């Protein structure tokens, strides 16, 4: 009996690596510390009532941001482990197995559990406020989306200590990811982790489309909507068209592994190339899903800190929409070397290049937003300025890669690695950082320390170039991606070492950001104005942080950049717009169902990973019961009284 338990435990838990034992201990200690702190300070009910069950978009946004920053930490540690391994030739710091796991989890976490939730966090924090709405269209669904993401991410991360991590690359091509070549549970963790959070992403897409189309403040025509909201709309449209493909693809892979089906197997008439097509039909739009909102953020920031209207609004909208449409016609450029023939390659090469046109136009429009402006350079604007050269160079190497016959020489090399890190870090990460700095005072009611922020910006930026510029040259030297070590004879040593130094510089940049946040919490510089940047859009009209109901009375919009125009009018001595009378506000009640239902999804996913139907089936039943219980709830709302609104507004020193 004891032996049996021992056998089971040694399979169940990941063993044999000091790094992982260290992680086990620290995870255990953290959990104990959290549980102890919550109990000691009697915070359990607070946690449940104020956070786990909340349907408030602002709190959900904060939870997204916290979770994604934790994931940024984990993905970043993965990156530094890889860079440490590659710093010198013939390094034995990581075994090939371990290295394969790390680049797999690094890719999955950075795209799906860092970039996506950080993006959703910003959607939640900003979009309703920018539209002059009191919440998203479906607050309950919004909470469910978050918890599905959270439990999906946890399920994926559990593989680190239980069962073993996936190691077939971030897109897990079969047959390598099939049961024949990856018999372990790591691949199942991959499938279920992404699947569960993917359902959440799909629902967020639906939620924000309806929010943007139906809940804009009175008078805000679509063509008067702030550019960030436009970018969210284009990103969400892409989500709803792309994510169902991912759902199907992962489901088919799982059915192959679990029921012995033959979708992507080598035998039985399966077709692995179909997986590669399907996964990129999702995967390519996915990178545009994450980058489009960053474009929106830059548009907001450029206009605000140039104190000037966004140049070429209509062009910008058109460019956003055409990018999200075109993103569906380029997927095959990820496998020009699969021998599809010149016709197919030429077609996808040209469609890929065409995307450069609207993207290029956006860059010109940002530049001319700043042209004849009054530029100031607080941290959000720094990231915006840092973004332009970085993204322009990254975009250029993207065009080089899209030239199909030349791609035969770039494909799978470090040239490609350098390219996509340049657009994803230079575009997405810089964009979201800029957004976080920009909207931080609105969300938390205090500004982040500018001085430490500048240090963070410069270490990140210099670190970026030191890390990734050498990788272009490594690619041209023939270094292929995903190699876990290389010999002295290759001559790749100097550039790899340089790249590693750059990687660690970015790590230091991240530490600066952590320090910046902690420092700013301690020496809080409160934002009492609600409008710390002299903003242009509706979110800056309300107190920071925004009250539960966001807007005491709904704003009446007459123009683009309505708040800016209103401030100009008042400065010219005109009277402010009249405000409607206060009325009770209809609000949704909190609900624990999203949390519980997502936990059941976790249970079901965990059961399927280990092929334990006794666990998986009750998990699925739990999910179904939660849905039914929700369906039978009718009293899901309440009203905030006029008196309470008056008290809240008075506390924020607002006259209503």
């Amino acid at each position, binding site marked *: 009996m004891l032996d049996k338990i021992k056998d089971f435990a040694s399979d169940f838990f990941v063993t044999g690596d000091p790094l992982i034992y260290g992680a086990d201990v620290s995870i255990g200690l953290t959990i104990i510390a959290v549980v102890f702190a919550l109990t000691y300070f009697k915070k359990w009910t607070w946690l449940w009532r104020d956070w786990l069950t909340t349907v408030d978009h602002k709190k959900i946004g904060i939870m997204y941001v916290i979770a994604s920053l934790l994931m940024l930490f984990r993905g970043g540690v993965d990156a530094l482990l890889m860079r440490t391994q590659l710093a010198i030739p013939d390094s034995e710091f990581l075994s*090939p197995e371990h290295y*394969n796991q790390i680049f797999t989890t690094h890719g999955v976490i950075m795209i799906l559990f860092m970039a996506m939730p950080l993006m959703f966090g910003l959607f939640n924090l900003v979009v309703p406020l920018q539209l002059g709405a009191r919440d998203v269209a479906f607050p309950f669904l919004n909470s469910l989306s978050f918890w599905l993401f959270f439990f999906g991410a946890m399920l994926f991360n559990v593989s680190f200590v239980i069962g073993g991590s996936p190691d077939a690359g971030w897109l897990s*091509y079969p*047959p390598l990811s099939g049961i024949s070549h990856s018999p372990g549970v790591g691949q199942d963790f991959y499938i279920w982790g992404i699947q569960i959070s993917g359902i959440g992403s799909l629902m967020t897409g639906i939620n924000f489309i309806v929010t943007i189309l139906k809940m804009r403040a009175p008078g805000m025509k679509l063509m008067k909507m702030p550019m960030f909201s436009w970018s969210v709309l284009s990103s969400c449209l892409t989500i709803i068209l792309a994510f169902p493909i991912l759902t199907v693809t992962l489901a088919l892979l799982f059915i192959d592994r679990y029921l*012995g089906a033959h979708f992507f197997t*080598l035998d039985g*008439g399966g*077709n*692995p*190339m*179909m997986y590669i097509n399907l996964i990129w039909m999702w995967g390519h739009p996915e990178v545009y899903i994450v980058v489009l909102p960053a474009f929106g953020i830059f548009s907001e920031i450029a206009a605000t800190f140039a104190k*000037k*209207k966004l*140049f*070429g*609004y209509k*062009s910008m909208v058109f460019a956003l929409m055409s990018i999200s449409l075109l993103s569906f016609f380029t997927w095959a450029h990820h*496998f020009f070397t699969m*021998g*599809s*023939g*010149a*016709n*197919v390659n*030429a077609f996808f*090469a*040209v469609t890929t290049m065409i995307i*450069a*046109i609207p993207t*290029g*136009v956006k860059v*010109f429009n940002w530049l001319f937003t700043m*042209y*004849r*402006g*009054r*530029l100031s*350079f607080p941290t959000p604007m720094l990231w915006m*300025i840092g973004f332009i*050269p970085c993204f*322009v160079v990254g975009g250029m190497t993207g*065009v*080089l890669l899209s030239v*199909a*016959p*030349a*791609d*035969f*020489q770039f*494909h*799978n*090399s470090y040239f490609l690695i350098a390219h996509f890190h340049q657009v994803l870090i230079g575009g997405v990460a810089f964009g979201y950082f800029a957004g976080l700095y920009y909207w931080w005072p609105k969300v938390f009611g205090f500004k982040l320390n500018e001085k430490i922020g500048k240090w963070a910006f410069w270490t990140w930026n210099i670190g970026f*170039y030191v890390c990734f510029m*050498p990788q272009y*040259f490594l*690619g041209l030297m*023939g270094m292929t991606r*995903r*190699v876990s070590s290389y010999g002295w004879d*290759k001559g790749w040593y100097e550039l790899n070492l340089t790249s590693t130094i750059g990687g660690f510089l970015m790590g230091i940049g991240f530490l600066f950001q952590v320090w910046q946040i902690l420092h700013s919490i301690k020496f809080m510089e409160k934002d009492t104005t609600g409008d710390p940047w002299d903003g242009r859009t509706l979110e800056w009209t309300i107190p920071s942080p925004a009250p539960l109901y966001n807007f005491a009375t709904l704003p009446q919009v007459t123009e683009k950049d309505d708040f800016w125009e209103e401030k100009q009018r008042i400065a010219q001595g005109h009277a402010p717009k009249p405000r409607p009378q206060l009325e009770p506000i209809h609000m949704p009640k909190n609900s624990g169902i999203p949390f519980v239902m997502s936990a059941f999804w976790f249970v079901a996913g965990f059961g399927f990973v280990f092929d334990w139907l006794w666990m998986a089936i009750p998990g699925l039943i739990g999910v179904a019961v939660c849905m039914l219980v929700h369906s039978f709830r009718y009293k899901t709302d309440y009203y905030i009284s006029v008196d309470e609104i008056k008290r809240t507004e008075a506390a924020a020193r607002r006259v209503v």
Partner: protein
Amino acid sequence: MMKGLRRLTAMMSLLAMTILMTGCGDKLIVLNPKGEIGKHQLDLIIISTVLCLVVIVPVLILTFYIVWKYRKEKKAKYDPNWEHSTKLETIWWSIPIVIIAILAVITVQYSYKLEPSKPLEHEAEPIVIQVTSLDWKWLFQYPDQGIATVNYIQFPDNVPIQFELTSDAPMNSFWIPQLGGQIYTMSGMAMKLHLIANEPGSYLGMGANFSGREFGKMQFTAKATSQEEFDTWVQSVKDSSPALTKEGYEQLAIPGVSEVETFSSIPTGLFQEIVTKYGGHNHPSSEGGSNNNEHGSHSNSDKAADSDKAPVIEKEDHSSTNHEGHTK
């Protein structure tokens, strides 16, 4: 804006440093091709880079200029409501359109010209090398010479090489950067890649696509020599190496890494067997449309025609999996 300038210098010195460190670009093997295909691809890389730089460089200069000129302290012309100019926007919609149009035309031309399955125009008869990617080694068969090698190829220079590629493991990618770009090796497929070496030399070859634990060890040397040296080498392999048998191949296919090996003979039809093992067919040439459909529709008939034995075995397999399916 001092900081912008500071970063510009940082970038510039970094670039200079990088170029210095690489030592005259000798190591940049992609930019130093020794074969016709690689040279054409280099031409294309240079053309596309120059075309992009035509836009990129002015944009970068403009960025620094605007950030410098319109910073708050300078009190330059301020025009807060200037938000539209049809003329300007037409200009910067058209510049990228023109550049991309030129690039697209060139790309399409080269796509047909450099299609890897297209034989090279050359007076010499091509030498055929059949490539199989295995779990974590490369098997090369010379059907005309009747020899085989592992992780090493040798061929005469100035003779076109017709690589036929497949895989008996997760897909990989066959890449000899100095001769030309790569192509995937996939089970059930026989891909074609035509390359040529214009001068003798030892070139780095590698498996470029991740295929599992030891994929990083899938590197090989591709050696181009004179025809005489090649013939001598073939003869020495025939004289001094063991034969490759079917059993020997099974041994070789077991996952693991391998040193360089040579074999004096190969079992007849081994390559074709590896391809058809997965219900394969010869890959559609440059005119092929969607390869998925091709794969789907061909595999069945190929298999039926191939042997009577295979389906019977598979039927037995099914009944057992069915059974398992039920108990699950």
